[in-house]
C-alpha cells in the first residue's frame, strides 16, 4: 500500500519512485517511475508492494519488469496471462490481460510505440486503498492527451501535454500555453513536487508519494 502523505522534502519528482497525478475532469493516476513494480495485496506495515490492491493477493503477488522497450511479468503466486497460468517469467504485450489470484483482472497497454511507458487498466473492481483510475509505468515520457494512444486519455484536452524526465526532474511541455504554479512557461518547465500545472483547458497536480 503506498503512503498517501506527500513528501515535501523532495525537491524533484524524479527523486521519488511514484507520484499521483490529479487531473481535473479526468481522474487520478498512479505513475510508477521505477523499472520494476511489484503488485500485491493490502498492508499497513512491513515490505509493501508498489501497487497494493484491496484484493486477496499475496503481499508480493507479481512483479512487472521493464526491460528495454518490452515488459515481462514475474509471478510470485497464482498469475494467469489471459487464460494461461504462468509459472515463470513471461513477456507481455499490448492488450494482454493479467489475472492475479481469483478475481483481479488488469489489462496491460503500450499505447504508443513512440514511448516505452505502459499503462495498467483495471478490468475488475479491485483498486488500491486510495482509489486511482489507472496506473502508468513511466519510462522516459508520459503523454496526457485526448487520444487513445496517449498514456492517459484526457478527452477535454485540446493538445497533448508531455511529461518527461530531464536532469533528474520531471518536466512538462505542450503546444498550448502552460503555467506551472501560475508562472507562464513557454518552452516547458520542471515540475516541483506539489506543483499545479494549468492551461486554458486543463489543470493537473503532481503529488509525490513515499513508499
Amino acid at each position: 500500500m503506498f503512503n498517501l502523505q506527500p513528501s515535501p522534502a523532495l525537491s524533484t519528482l524524479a527523486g521519488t519512485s511514484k507520484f499521483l497525478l490529479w487531473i481535473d475532469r479526468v481522474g487520478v493516476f498512479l505513475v510508477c517511475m521505477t523499472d520494476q513494480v511489484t503488485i500485491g495485496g493490502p498492508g499497513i506495515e512491513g515490505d509493501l508492494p508498489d501497487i497494493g490492491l484491496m484484493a486477496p493477493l499475496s503481499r508480493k503477488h507479481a512483479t512487472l519488469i521493464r526491460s528495454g522497450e518490452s515488459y515481462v511479468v514475474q509471478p510470485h503466486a497464482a498469475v494467469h496471462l489471459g487464460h494461461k497460468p504462468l509459472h515463470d517469467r513471461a513477456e507481455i504485450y499490448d492488450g494482454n490481460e493479467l489475472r492475479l489470484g481469483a478475481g483481479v483482472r488488469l489489462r496491460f497497454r503500450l499505447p504508443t510505440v513512440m514511448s516505452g511507458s505502459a499503462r495498467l487498466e483495471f478490468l475488475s473492481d479491485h483498486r488500491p486503498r486510495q482509489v486511482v483510475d489507472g496506473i502508468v509505468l513511466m519510462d522516459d515520457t508520459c503523454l496526457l492527451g485526448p487520444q487513445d494512444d496517449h498514456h492517459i486519455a484526457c478527452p477535454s484536452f485540446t493538445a497533448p501535454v508531455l511529461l518527461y524526465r530531464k536532469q533528474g526532474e520531471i518536466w512538462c511541455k505542450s503546444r498550448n500555453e502552460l503555467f506551472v504554479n501560475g508562472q507562464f512557461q513557454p518552452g516547458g518547465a520542471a515540475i516541483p513536487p506539489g506543483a499545479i500545472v494549468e492551461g486554458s483547458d486543463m489543470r493537473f497536480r503532481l503529488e509525490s508519494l513515499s513508499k
Partner: protein
Amino acid sequence: MKFMFAPEARPLPGYTIKRAIDRGGFGEVYYALSDSGKEVALKLLQRNTDVELRGIAECLNLKHPNLLSLFDVRTDEEGSHWLVMEYISGKSLELTLEGHPQGLPPAEVENWFTQMCAGVNYLHERGVVHRDLKPANIFREGPIVKIGDVGLAKSITPSRRSIQTESVGTVYYMAPEVAKGKYGSEIDVYSLGVMLFEMLTGRLPFSGESTGEILMKHLTEKPDLEKVPERFRPVVARALAKDPTKRTPSASVLAEEFRAAAGGKVVAQELTWDDMVAPPAPRRSAPPVAQPRKSNPLAETQASRRSGAASPMKPLVIAMCIMGVIFAMKSGAGSAGMFRLLVLGLVGVAVYKGWGVFGSAMRGANLVPVSAPRPPVIPQIPKAPRYRSEATSPATLRRLPLSSRMEDLTTSMTRAAFWTAIATVIVGLNTTLLGQIGDLTSDPARLAFYSITTLLGTWALLIPAKLWEGKEAQGPARRVILTAIGAAVGVGAAWLHEQLYLESMTMTANTFPGLLRTVGDRPLFGPDLQPSTAGFAVFFAALFGIRRWWWQADAFRSARFRFSSTILTALLGFVIPAAFVFPQNWAVLWAVSLSSIVQLSAGWVPVAERSEFLTKAA
C-alpha cells in the same frame, strides 16, 4: 473550463480538494479527501436558495443502493453551501453511451435500466421526484448503478404538483408537461423512457437545433421507434406517452415491463398514435391551458419537416422576410433595399436559432399555460457540442470580491466618460457622414443630447455587467433586467430631448417606416415627427434587451475590442426602427457608440493572464 478552487484548497475544515470533477447544472463538483483519507465529492451550491437547501435536507437520509448517498450540507467561511456526497469512481451513463454509438448490448441495458428504475421508484415512494434524470447523472461503479443529484430533487405532494422554483432537467429528457409547470412523478418515468430509447438505439428520440424545436417535438412528435428492438417498442412507447395519465404508471411497472419484454413476453399495452400525442388534459382545478395550435399534430409535424422549420419561431422568420420584401420594394431594386432584405434575413435567422430573449419568449408563448401564475423557465439547450472542452470566456465562473468589482466599475465608467467625449468630437466633426443628425457643431444642444444620452446608456450597461461578472449567467433574467434599464434610459433621453427643445430627430429621409407606430395607445412619435417618450423607451429597451451586453463588457471576452460585436449591434440599431418607428440614423449611431464605448471602457484580462487571475481569485 476553470474552477474556483485549486487542488489542495480546504474550503471546508477536514476536507482537502484534490481535483475538480466537473461543473454541473447546480454547481462545481470536486473530488476531496477527508483528513483521514475518506474520499468524497464536494458540490459547491452556487445558487444557495432556501428551497434548494430544503430540498437537499429532505433527501439527506434517504438510503438506497441505487442512489448516490448524501452525507451532509456544510457552509464555508464565506457563507457558501457545500453538499458532501458519496464519490463514485465509475463511468457515467453519458460516457458509456459515448462509447456505444449504436446502443448498449441488451445485457448492459438491463443492468443499467433496472437499477435506475429501482432507485427512481424508491424516490417516488417517498414522495420525491428527481426532475433531472439524464445520463450525466447516472453512474456505475462495478455492477452497482447509482443516481446522482438526488438532493436537488423537489418534494412533490398532490397539492404541490405545480411547485415552481426553477425548471430543471435537460431538454432532451424533459417530459412535455414540464413546459406547463407540471412536476409529477410521471416526468421521471418519461425521462427513464428517453434513456431507455437512447440505451437501446444510441440515439435520442427527439433532438433539434433549439430548445423550442426539441420541446415542440416532445409535445407533438411521435418518437421513431424503428431502431428500437421490436419487443421493446411497446414499453418505450408507453413510457414516452405525451399524456402523463396514459404513461407507464410507475418506475417499478416500467422495470417489470422491460424485464418481461426482454424475456419475450408482452406486458405493455400497445398505444395508439392518438394516445401518444394527445396533449396532457387540464386538471379540473387547473387554469385553462393553451393547447398546441396543431389540430392534426402528425400531419402538421410532417408538413413542418418538409418545410424544414418545425420551430414556433417560424412565424417571426416569415414576418422578417415579409418586412424585408416590403422595404426592398419601397426602396426600389437598388442596393439599399437588398441590403435591408439581407439584414432582416440575418436577424431573422439569428432569432430563429434561439438568439435572444425574444426567441425564448416566442417559444414559450406556445407552451405556457395562459393564466399560469408564473411561466416556467425553460432550460437552455447547450449551445456548444455536448463534449467540447471550454476555454476561458465570459461564462467562466470567478469569485470577484466586491471591492474589486467596484474598482473595475469605477475605472470603466471613467474611461467611458473619456471615450464618450472622443465620440462626441468625432460625431460633431463628421457632419457629412452624419448629415441627417444635422450640423452638430453648430448646435451644441444636439451634441450635448447625444453625448449625455450616450454616457448614460454606457454607464447603464456597464454597471449591471460588472456586477454580474463571473457569476453564473441567467441569460433571460439578465435580458429582462437590461430591457427595463434600457426603457429607463429611453425615458431619460426623452426628458432630456424635451428639455433641450430639440427638433432635429425627424422621421423622414432614412427613417424606416416602422411596422409599429404605437405601443398600446401610446404613439412612438409626436405630431412634430419627434420620437415620443414611448418611442425612446421602446428603442433603448430593445437595444439593451436583445444584445448580450454583459459579454461585451466582461473581462474575459475574447478580445478587448471586437469589430464584429459593434457591427452586429449596428445591424440591430438598423433593424429596430423597422419594427418600432424611430430615427434610423440616430438608432445606428447610438448602437455603434454604445457597443464601441462599452468595449473600450470595460476592463479586460488578456488570455495569457487568465489562469493566474483565476488562481489568485480562487
